[in-house]
């Protein structure tokens, strides 16, 4: 796959007057590659550096050491700052704090206006972006009358209107209710599948990470492990050691396997889990059912 973003041995620390925290690096030698059109989930517990990393992809933060290349452009290259920000959009956690204008469509237009896109084209881009996220009928509303999930979709539309190649989402669902979370996640998947936009989803919900093409696990400013969701979540013990959870279905099967049942190596969602259990039950018909219930 074509490499879109390359992160090469990146170190970063926040400015601090405190002498003792000078050597606390938020990023501690991160290496990763993101392919064009990929859907990557970055997971990690609080303070693992995942949000700090997210802000490196479009030059909000610059690495203290190491380099990040977006489309072959170094993020430290000040002359091409807007090229980078145009191709990599960032959606933040709090939907309230990233909406600038008092009307939905005018907020979506903000990015295009800054880029100097001609007025007519802005209009069509804004309409398309709002239709893509399913917020077109709310275009003349004021953002404070919308729900959290709707606001977050407006924020995503504001990024899409700039026609980026990649969208980085920094815990976009952390402040939303389950319904809003579903809305946002399905919107993101839709963008990836239909428009081929590269997605980097920073999250601490493992259920969201499971749906990605690739999962990168971060811990104390480093990449701990990466691979397909199956590969990553089969390492249940290792993830637990690093204070990370796994999806509930995965955990259940893992525990059952620990009790000596013959089950697949790794399941990711409820359906797979149910299938695996049904298979197990039909195979050991005699007394099997009681056993399973007793032990789990």
């Amino acid at each position, binding site marked *: 796959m074509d490499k879109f973003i390359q992160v090469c041995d990146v170190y970063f620390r926040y400015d601090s007057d405190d002498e003792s925290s000078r050597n606390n690096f938020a990023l501690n030698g991160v290496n990763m590659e993101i392919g064009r059109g990929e859907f990557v989930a970055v997971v990690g517990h609080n303070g693992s550096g995942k949000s700090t990393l997210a802000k490196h992809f479009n030059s*909000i933060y610059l690495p203290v050491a190491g380099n990040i290349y977006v489309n072959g452009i170094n993020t430290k290259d000040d002359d091409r700052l807007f090229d980078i920000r145009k191709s990599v959009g960032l959606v933040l956690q709090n939907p309230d*704090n990233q909406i*600038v*204008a*008092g009307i939905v469509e005018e907020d979506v237009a903000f990015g295009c206006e*800054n880029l*100097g896109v001609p007025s007519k084209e802005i209009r069509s881009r804004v309409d398309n972006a709002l239709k893509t996220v399913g917020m077109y009928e709310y275009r003349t509303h004021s953002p404070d009358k919308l729900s959290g999930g709707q606001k977050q979709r407006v924020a995503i539309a504001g*990024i899409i209107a700039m026609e980026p190649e990649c969208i980085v989402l920094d815990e976009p669902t952390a402040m939303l209710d389950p319904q809003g979370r579903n809305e946002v996640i399905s919107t993101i998947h839709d963008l990836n599948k239909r428009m081929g936009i590269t997605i980097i989803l920073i999250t601490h919900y493992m259920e969201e990470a499971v749906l990605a093409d690739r999962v990168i696990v971060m811990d104390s400013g480093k990449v701990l492990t990466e691979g397909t969701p199956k590969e990553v979540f089969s390492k249940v013990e290792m993830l637990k050691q690093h204070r990370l959870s796994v999806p509930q279905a995965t955990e259940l099967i893992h525990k059952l396997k620990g009790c000596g049942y013959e089950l697949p190596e790794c399941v990711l969602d409820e359906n797979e889990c149910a299938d695996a259990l049904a298979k197990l039950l039909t195979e050991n018909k005699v007394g099997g059912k009681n056993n399973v219930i007793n032990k789990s």
Partner: protein
Amino acid sequence: MVRDITLGQYLPGNSIIHKMDPRSKILLLIAYIVVIFLCRNFVSLLIISLFSILIILLTRISFLKYLKSLRMIIFVIILTGIFNLFYGTGNVLFEWWIFRITTGGVNNALFVIVRITILMMVSAVLTYTTSPTDLTDALERLMKPLSIFHVKVHEIALMMTIALRFIPVLLEETDKIMNAQKARGADMESGNVFQRVKALMPVLIPLFVSSFRRANDLAMAMECRCYNGGKNKTRMKILYFSKIDLFASIISVIIFGAVIFTNTLFQPVI
């Protein structure tokens, strides 16, 4: 309670007034305010009041909304009305102790009440029919000449946009913090003025802290969307002076002319 504030409240619609260029709306409103205060007799006051009602009807927004815009200043209207009642010369209608109501006072009170009421309602027409961004955009264009004096017009307009956007957000936050402090036993309703002001400190400090955090986030979100200080910025909506604006301006000029003419024609009552 905080939801009732009408400041900067925009009600989307499709009326003629909505379609007017915000710049002409602002300029005509300024002219209108000047004319209201030029009125010195009942004929001119009647003309301008009827004109105001016409404008309000043209917006096709429910009259209740306009009454709501008055709610914030109803006390100001009543109070100035009462003060003006006792302030004036002319035939004495009623006298008791130091209070004396004269025909001049009654006229004064009537004029003040009508003036403030229609002034507020017509100002509400501007905010009800113009989106906040259009409004600040228009102000930016109108203030453009000031940039030769190194006034940062774009920044001022952006600050206004953001302020209007965050007023409801911060009001909601204030409500939340107040409830949180009340849940911990904070007493904000009793005591004298000083005690109450002091009781507000535990609300204001968290509000300030969170505002800074929001500002930080917002700045980052703006940078993500290539904000560069308004250089080479284009607009989604282009403001242009249309036939409606020309028509509205001509009508307004005629009405304003009529008001000033009747002002000189009849005897001033105040």
